[in-house]
């Protein structure tokens, strides 16, 4: 055994020789030490050195193994590829060594809180090819979408084209954007336009916005209406009506000899409310932990539509009908605060709405501004 052999060699040497050897290893020695003490000291130094060398050897072997494995793998891959791919593989291998080095340096720094030795040119890549599902949580069976890391996947060119100007269908859409404005868009096929223009006195399209509050609209009995000629090519309209809680119908029409001839007619829309209102105060008890579908079942045929559930429940509870959960009386005494908080006509609410831009929009706008760049998009 090497250790034994070295001990024997040392034993055969004089005290002066041993002192010299010990000094070579920078051990703390003095002339007063006996030969036996020197031998013991040197033996411990040798042991430490051997351990260190053994560790280093193991490390080297490990590194060699990894390197061999890597080389083997890359050789296997490389042989399967054409000459061009070989060159790329080599490049990747050299880059990955650089990356590993820099990641190790950073990892070490992370754990020891020491200043990391940074190699500025090295890029850090930590993406791993994972066999885990893309969606790692939940108990749903992995599906075909669970494909792990796809960052190096090549995507099929799409050539999607552009969005069409028209879908060549006859349609009209209308939405009450706010208490003042209606937004409307429409699409008309050429055939439809041609057909109606045969009956038109001026070959023009018009948009007609009719207030139909509290009436059954027959095309001519609107409470009032707005009429605009539609410029050629226009397909949407913002109409200022300023009519909270009024009902409207929008039509695309032509003028015929007999009056307006509707081509498209929208559904009836109700403009949003813009003020507070008084009305009957009705309460209901709806237990939170009983599913609504269960409550619907309890009410049975008495419930004509789920939009009446709360009112029906309230009525039954006030009538003390038999229900599996009790009616808990509310405390309505304090219900006089609203005017005090918001003013008799809700001025406080309007002030609040005007100021509502504040940070919500500013924040989101700045997020978008900070993190995006149109120029990048163009380059893509």
């Amino acid at each position, binding site marked *: 055994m090497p250790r034994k052999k070295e001990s024997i060699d040392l034993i055969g040497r004089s005290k002066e020789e041993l002192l010299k050897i010990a000094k070579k290893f920078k051990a703390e020695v003095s002339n007063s030490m006996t030969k036996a003490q020197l031998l013991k000291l040197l033996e411990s130094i040798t042991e430490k050195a051997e351990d260190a060398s053994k560790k280093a050897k193991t490390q080297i072997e490990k590194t060699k193994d990894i390197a061999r494995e890597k080389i083997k793998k890359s050789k296997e891959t490389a042989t399967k590829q054409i000459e061009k791919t070989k060159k790329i593989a080599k490049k990747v291998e050299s880059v990955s060594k650089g990356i590993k080095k820099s990641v190790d340096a950073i990892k070490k720094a992370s754990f020891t809180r020491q200043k990391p030795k940074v190699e500025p040119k090295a890029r850090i890549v930590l993406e791993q090819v994972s066999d885990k599902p893309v969606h790692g949580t939940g108990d749903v069976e992995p599906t075909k979408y669970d494909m792990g890391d796809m960052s190096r996947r090549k995507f099929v060119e799409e050539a999607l084209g552009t*969005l069409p100007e028209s879908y060549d269908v006859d349609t009209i859409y209308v*939405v009450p954007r706010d208490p003042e404005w209606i937004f409307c868009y429409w699409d008309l096929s050429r055939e439809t336009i041609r057909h109606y223009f045969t009956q038109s006195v001026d070959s023009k399209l018009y948009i007609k916005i009719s207030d139909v509050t509290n009436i059954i609209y027959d095309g001519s009995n609107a409470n009032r209406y707005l009429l605009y000629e539609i410029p050629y090519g226009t397909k949407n309209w913002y109409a200022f009506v300023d009519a909270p809680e009024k009902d409207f119908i929008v039509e695309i029409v032509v003028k015929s000899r007999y009056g307006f001839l509707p081509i498209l007619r929208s559904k009836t829309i109700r403009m949003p409310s813009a003020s507070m209102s008084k009305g009957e105060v009705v309460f209901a008890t709806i237990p939170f932990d009983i599913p609504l579908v269960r409550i619907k079942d309890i009410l049975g045929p008495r419930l004509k539509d789920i939009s009446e559930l709360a009112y029906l429940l309230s009525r039954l509870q006030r009538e003390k009908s038999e229900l599996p959960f009790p009616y808990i009386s509310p405390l309505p005494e304090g219900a006089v605060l*609203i005017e005090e908080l918001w003013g008799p006509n809700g001025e406080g609410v309007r002030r609040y709405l005007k100021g509502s831009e504040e940070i919500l929009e500013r924040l989101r706008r700045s997020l978008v501004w900070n993190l995006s760049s*149109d120029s990048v998009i163009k380059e893509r």
Partner: protein
Amino acid sequence: MEKGYLAILLHAHLPFVRHPEYDEFLEEDWFYEAISETYLPLLDVFEGLAGDGVGFHLNITISPSLASMMNDELLRNRYLKHLYRLIDLTGKEIDRTKHQPEFNSLAWFYHTRFQRLRYLFEEKYHKDLIAQFKRFQDAGYLDILTVGATHGFLPLMEDHPWAVRAQIMTARDYHRRCFGRDPKGIWLPECAYFNGVERFLFEADIRYFILDTHGLLYGKPTPVYGVYSPIFTPYGVAAYGRDPESSKQVWSAEEGYPGDFDYREFYRDVGFDLDYDYIKPYIHPDGIRIFTGVKYYRITGKTKHKQPYNRDVALSKAAIHAGNFMFNREKQVEYLNSKLGIKPIILAPYDAELFGHWWFEGPDFLNYLFRKTFYDQKVFKTITLSEYLRRNPTQQIVNPARSSWGNKGYYEVWVEGSNSWIYPHLHIAEKRMNELANNFYGKNDIENRAIRQAARELLLAQSSDWAFIMKTGTAVGYARKRFTDHILRFTRIYNEVKSHSVNLKWLQSVEDRDNIFPDINVEYFK
């Protein structure tokens, strides 16, 4: 005995941004920055509170599109790469600032902070943020609400009930998958309400939603307790209204806490401030300067000459603001209790990303607020919205008003000159999806697969974020491209299914790219 309740609600949402076709993609940074500055710091605050035995209750929405990104292995690994790069940068910053003590201590602060974030994300949470939120939910601290599947603006789908239904039911399903239970509450995207949306909430057994203040106050009739108690809509689903007072205290750019001069300045970032060659390895590979999250200055005042940020002073200020917020809520609750005769609930909803990303000290503010509320007063308690309804099952019946929480309170932000062009395309796609679900689904595997992908493309196109970005007018390119791509992919699938000529190779690539909602249910589109 408490006299009322405070319900803080954080709305966490980001549009689904995932681009495996690029090595790095600028807009993915939205997600990475939000993890570093908001989601992880919040979880860290929760850990501390729970560990110290502080009783707290918080309501948080996690939109299905955000949850999908949190669950995505590619994005998780890319985030880690992003984090390692910041650790690298801040290590370098420690050397660069060694002769500037006020900046050197900040460089160390950031370096240590990013190391801790890495530890939390990689080692402690194993990259699974959803599991952590679920843990705090299961322990009773959090009420997690869902949002529309891709944050689609529901009032503009009103004419196509299946589209509304698909947004809500898909959200319900994905929430269940993530958090192991059905959502009891929903944040209607942009708080945008139309009468009748409850029909779909009813089906999902979602028991409450949130309205902006006027959505309740302009309801029929105006509720007797204002926004300080929920109401039942005629469908039996409850609605809470936003308290304007507490919102303003935090939100307002002028009066709100985040504008305090001692807080960190958002706009001064080393990504823009430092020498180009030095910072180049840490910005976009194309050389575009970006925010790195390493910021050395405080707001200072309305001046360009900013002072160095002092973390200790900023934290003291966050504690003072938390105390002020608590004091104001005490007075508010006492007043409301005496006037209304009930234990009022004050609902204070905020964009989650405000806390940490925009207002760097926001998570610390919440930390102090919960601790002070727990230890220093007895007037109010924090509560979850579910718990309040459980304890107070009797409420007034009110028909709410059309509204949203956007500028001016209605739909204008999402329907105006810059973005209304998207709706004809969306509505056609919604009709076509209905046609695919009714007439073509269930006939053969490949077409079924294509139809499921068509559903994903439609959902992704519906995200209200695209219209919002178009309105802001600052980064229209990406939003337009995303919207257009999803509609065109949808259209191609529609045409291929109808002509029984699905291109499998292309379909596969689209599935790989837009991989949201792997178990999407086409039945909802019928």
